[in-house]
C-alpha cells in the first residue's frame, strides 16, 4: 500500500521542466501543422525549429530556480546548464545545413524536424537528471529519434547505418538496464547521489556487485561515447548518414553522454577503488591510441573524421578520469571548440558532396577527391586546411586551447603519463589530418571543374562554415571568458 503523496505544486519547481516542455510542444505543434497544411517548405520548417530552439535556449539561460525539481528527479546544476547550451547551440548550427543547394528528401518532411526536437528533449533529460531512470528515458528517446533521422536519409548505406546503430544501441540499452538494476539492488535507490551515499557508508562493499554494475555502465556509456572496444559502429554510421548529421552525432550525443559519465564515474573514481581507475585508464588510452592508428589508414575523409572524433572522445574521457575542476572545465572548453571546428569540417564535406561517387567506387569522399583543391577553390581549401590543423591541435586554432588546458589539468593532478599519451597522440593525429592538407595543397588536381565541388553549396551553408571558421581562427579571444564562465558553473555544481 503506497503512502498518499501530497506535495505543494510550487515545490515541484515546474520551471525546471520548461526547456524540455518548449521543444516537446514545438514538436507536437509541428506535427499538427503538418497535418493541416501540406507541402510546407523546408525553409519554414527549419526556421520554426530554430525559433523553438532559441526559446528553449532562453529558458535555459534564464533559469533561476532551485537546483532540484519535479520530485527531485531533475537536477539543474551548472554542468547541466553548460551542456544544454552546447546541445542547443550545436542544434541551431546544424539546422541551417538542411538548406543546401540540392534538395534531400528528409529535409522536406516535417517529421524530421519533429523528431529532431524530440531528440533534443531526450538529450536535455539526460543532462538534467541524476536519476538513472530518467537518464535512461532520455537516452532512449534521443537514440530512437536519432536512428530514424539517419534512416530518413534514404540511401542504402543510411539504412545500413541506422540498423547497425539500432542493434548496437539496443545492446547498450540492455547493459544500461542491467547496470541500473544492480545499483538499485545494491543500494535501494536509482539516484546517483543516494547511491553514492549508501556506497560510501558501506565502504563500497560488496565489491563484486559494484564491479559488475560499473562494467555494464562502462559498456553502455562506452557505446554512446564510442569508447574502444565499443566504437566499431561509429565509422559505418557516420559514413551512412548525411555529412551534417554525422558531424552533429560526433558532438551532441557525446556531450550528453559525458555529463552522465561525469556524474557516475567521478563518484566511482573518487571512491578510491583502484581497479576502477585502471579500467577507465585503459579505456582512455586504448580509445585515443587505437582510434588514431586506425584513422591513419583510412582512405575516406569522412571515415577518417569518424575515427578522429573517437580519439577526441578518448581525450575527453581522460578529463573525466582526472576528475578535478580544471579537468572538467577543460572537457567543456575542449568540446565547445571541437563543436565549431568539427561541425565546420563536416559541413565542408556537405558542401563538396556530389550525387555520384565520381572519385572512388566505394567511398564518397576519398582523399583523391580533394587533390589540388587549392588550385580549383583556394578559399575552400584554405578553410578546410584550417579546420584540419585546428583538429590536430595546432596553435593558435581552437582545439589547441582545449587540449592545452586538458594536458595542464592532467599534469596538475600528477597524471604525467596520461599527459604524455595525449601529447603523443596529437602528434600521431597530425599525420592523418595533414594527409588531407597535403592532398589539397600539394597534389595536382584530378579535375579542374570547380562546379563538381560546389553542387551542394548554398548561402546558408557558407554562412555556417564562415561562422565556424571565424570561431576557429579567433578562438584565442574566447578562451578567457569561456574559462571564467565554465569554471564558475563547474565548480558551483561540485565537480
Amino acid at each position, binding site marked *: 500500500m503506497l503512502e498518499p503523496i501530497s506535495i505543494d505544486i510550487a515545490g515541484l519547481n515546474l520551471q525546471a521542466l520548461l526547456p524540455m516542455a518548449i521543444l516537446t510542444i514545438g514538436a507536437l505543434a509541428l506535427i499538427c501543422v503538418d497535418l493541416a497544411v501540406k507541402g510546407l517548405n523546408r525553409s519554414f520548417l527549419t526556421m520554426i525549429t530554430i525559433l523553438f530552439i532559441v526559446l528553449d535556449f532562453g529558458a535555459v539561460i534564464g533559469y533561476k530556480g532551485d537546483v532540484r525539481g519535479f520530485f527531485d528527479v531533475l537536477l539543474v546544476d551548472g554542468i547541466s546548464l553548460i551542456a544544454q547550451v552546447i546541445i542547443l547551440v550545436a542544434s541551431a548550427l546544424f539546422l541551417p545545413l538542411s538548406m543546401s543547394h540540392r534538395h534531400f528528401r528528409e529535409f522536406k518532411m516535417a517529421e524530421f524536424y519533429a523528431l529532431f526536437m524530440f531528440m533534443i528533449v531526450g538529450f536535455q533529460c539526460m543532462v538534467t537528471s541524476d536519476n538513472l531512470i530518467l537518464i535512461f528515458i532520455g537516452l532512449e528517446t534521443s537514440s530512437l529519434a536519432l536512428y530514424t533521422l539517419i534512416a530518413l536519409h534514404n540511401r542504402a548505406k543510411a539504412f545500413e547505418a541506422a540498423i547497425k546503430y539500432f542493434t548496437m544501441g539496443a545492446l547498450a540499452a540492455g547493459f544500461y538496464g542491467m547496470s541500473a538494476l544492480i545499483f538499485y539492488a545494491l543500494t535501494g535507490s536509482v539516484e546517483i547521489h543516494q547511491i553514492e551515499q549508501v556506497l560510501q557508508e558501506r565502504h563500497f562493499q560488496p565489491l563484486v556487485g559494484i564491479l559488475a554494475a560499473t562494467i555494464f555502465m562502462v559498456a553502455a556509456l562506452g557505446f554512446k561515447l564510442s569508447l574502444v572496444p565499443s566504437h566499431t559502429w561509429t565509422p559505418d554510421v557516420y559514413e551512412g548518414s548525411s555529412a551534417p548529421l554525422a558531424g552533429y552525432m560526433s558532438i551532441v550525443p557525446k556531450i550528453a553522454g559525458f555529463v552522465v559519465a561525469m556524474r557516475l564515474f567521478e563518484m566511482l573514481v573518487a571512491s578510491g577503488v583502484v581497479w576502477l581507475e585502471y579500467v577507465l585508464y585503459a579505456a582512455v588510452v586504448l580509445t585515443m591510441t587505437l582510434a588514431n592508428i586506425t584513422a591513419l589508414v583510412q582512405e575516406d575523409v569522412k571515415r577518417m573524421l569518424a575515427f578522429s572524433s573517437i580519439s577526441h572522445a578518448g581525450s575527453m574521457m581522460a578529463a573525466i578520469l582526472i576528475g578535478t575542476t580544471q579537468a572538467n572545465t577543460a572537457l567543456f572548453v575542449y568540446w565547445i571548440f571541437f563543436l565549431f571546428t568539427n561541425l565546420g569540417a563536416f559541413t565542408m564535406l556537405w558542401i563538396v558532396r556530389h550525387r555520384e561517387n565520381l572519385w572512388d567506387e566505394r567511398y564518397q569522399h576519398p582523399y583523391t577527391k580533394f587533390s589540388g583543391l587549392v588550385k580549383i577553390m583556394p578559399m575552400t581549401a584554405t578553410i578546410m586546411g584550417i579546420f584540419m590543423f585546428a583538429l590536430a591541435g595546432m596553435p*593558435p586554432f581552437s582545439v589547441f586551447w582545449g587540449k592545452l588546458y586538458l594536458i595542464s589539468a592532467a599534469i596538475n593532478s600528477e597524471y604525467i603519463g596520461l599527459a604524455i599519451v595525449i601529447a603523443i597522440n596529437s602528434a600521431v593525429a597530425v599525420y592523418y589530418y595533414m594527409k588531407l592538407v597535403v592532398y589539397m595543397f600539394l597534389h595536382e588536381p584530378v579535375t579542374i571543374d570547380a562546379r563538381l565541388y560546389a553542387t551542394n553549396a548554398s548561402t546558408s551553408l557558407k554562412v555556417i562554415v564562415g561562422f565556424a571558421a571565424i570561431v576557429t581562427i579567433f578562438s*584565442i579571444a574566447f578562451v578567457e571568458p569561456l574559462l571564467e564562465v565554465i569554471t564558475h558553473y563547474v565548480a558551483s555544481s561540485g565537480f
Partner: protein
Amino acid sequence: MEHILSLLVFFPAMAGLLGFLVVKESIRAYGICVSAIEFVLSLILWMGFDTSNPGYQFVEFFPFVPSYGMNYYLGVDGISLFLIILSTFITMIALIGLSIEKEIKNLVITVLFLEMTMVGVFVILDVVWFYAFWELSLIPMLYIIGAWGSANRMYAAIKFFLYTFSGSVLMLVGILYMGYLYHDATGIWSFALPDWYALQVPFDAQLWLFGAFFIGFAIKVPMFPFHTWLPYAHGQAPTIGSVILAAVLLKMGSYGFVRFSLPLFPDASVYFLIPVAIICVIMVIYAAMIAYAQEDMKQVIAYSSISHMGIVILGTFAMNGEGITGSIFLMLSHGIVSGALFMLVGVIYDRRHTKMMKDFGGLASVMPNFATIYGIMLMASVGLPLTVGFVGEFLSLAGFYRINWVMTLLAGTGIILGAVYMLVLYKKSFFGEVVHVENKTLKDLNAKELSALIPLVALVAILGVYPKPILTTIDASVEKMLVLMDQKALQDTTKELLMKANTIGGNH
C-alpha cells in the same frame, strides 16, 4: 617605438593578407617591398636599442588569458635582437633572389606568413605563445617544400613536419609542467619567461624538463641522431625554402637552448653537459664525413649545416660568455653563409637543372663572378680568419676549451674536415677543364642574383673584420644570463663548473 615589436611581428602577416589582392605579375615586387620595409623596421629597432641595457627592451604586455597566466608579452634583448634582423634580412634577400615562376603569388604570401612566425618566435616572451609561433612556422615551410620542391618533395615535406611536430608536443608537456611548478611555488599561473627565470626548479624536475625541451630543440637544430629529416628537406626544397630553412629555422632550435634550457634549468644543463657535448662532437665529425661523401652539391651544404650547428650547440654549452656569445654570433654567420651558399646552388640549378658535382667542372672560367662569390662563401663557411665564419667558431671553441680541451680538439677537427669537403667541392665544380658541353655557354650572374648576393658578401667581410658592435651587444645579455644561472644553481657542482668556465687561466 612603443609598439615596434608588434608591428614587426604582424606587419608581414598583414601584408600577406593584402597580398591576396595584388595581381600575379606584381607580386614579386610587392614581396620585396614588404620584406624591405620589414628589414628597415628591424634596423630601426636596432637603432633604438639601448646597448647598455642587457634586459628586455621595447616590452609590450597585454594579459590575454589572465586566469591561466597566458599573456601577450613581447620583448627583445641582445640575444634575440640580431636573430630578428637576420630573419628579416634573409627573407628580403631570399625574395630578391627568387626565380620561381609557378604559383608565385601563393609562394610570396606563404613566405610573408613564414616571416611573421620567425620574428614571432624570437620576440615573444610568453612560453605558450612561443610554442604557438614555433608550431605555426611549420605550416608555411611544409607548403613551400611540398608545393615547389623537386620530385620527392611530398615525402620530404611530411617528414620535416612530422619530425618537428612530434618533438615539440613533448616540449608542450614540458611547458605545461613548468607552468604547474610555477603555480605550485607561487600560487599564481604564469607562462611569462621572465617570471620563470625567477623560479628555482627542483633538481629532479629539472632533469625531466630539460629532456622535454631538449627533444623539441634538438630535432629542430637538428642534432644527431634526429638529423635525418634535414638532408631530405634540403634536397627537395626549392632554393628559397632551403635558404630560409638553413638560415633562420634551424636557429630557432639553438636559440631555444640559449633562451630556455640554460637559464631555466642550469643544474640539468650542467648535469647533461658532457652527453650533449659528445652529441655535438659526433655531429661535427660525422656530418662532415658524410658531407665529404656526397655527390650532390646541395647535400654537401646541408650536411655542413649539421656540422656547423654542432659547434653552435657546443659553444652554447660552454657556459661562459665567450662560448655563448660566440655561438649566437655563429648562428648569425651561419645564417648568412649557408643562406648564400644555398642561393648559389640555386643559381646554378636554375641554369643547368642539376646539382651533381660530376656535371660541372671548370665553371670558374665560364662564370667568374659566380666562382668568386662561391669561393668567398666557401671560405667563410670553412671559417677562414677575417671572414664572418671564423669569429663565431673561434669564440665557441675557445669557450668550450675551458670545459674540456679534448672535445674541443675533436670538434676543431671539424674545421679541418670542413676545409676538406668544401675545397673538394670547389675543385670538382669550378677548377679544371670544362668537360661538359652544356657548361660552356652558361651565363654568369645576372643583376637580380648579384643584388641578392653582394649584400651577403659585404656582410661576410665587414662582420669578419669588425664584429665588435654585435658581439658587445650580445655579450651584455649573455653575461646577465650567466649571473642568473649562477644565482639559481642549486647544486655545488653547477656553481663550481660555472666558476671554472668563467675564470680565465684555469688549469686544464
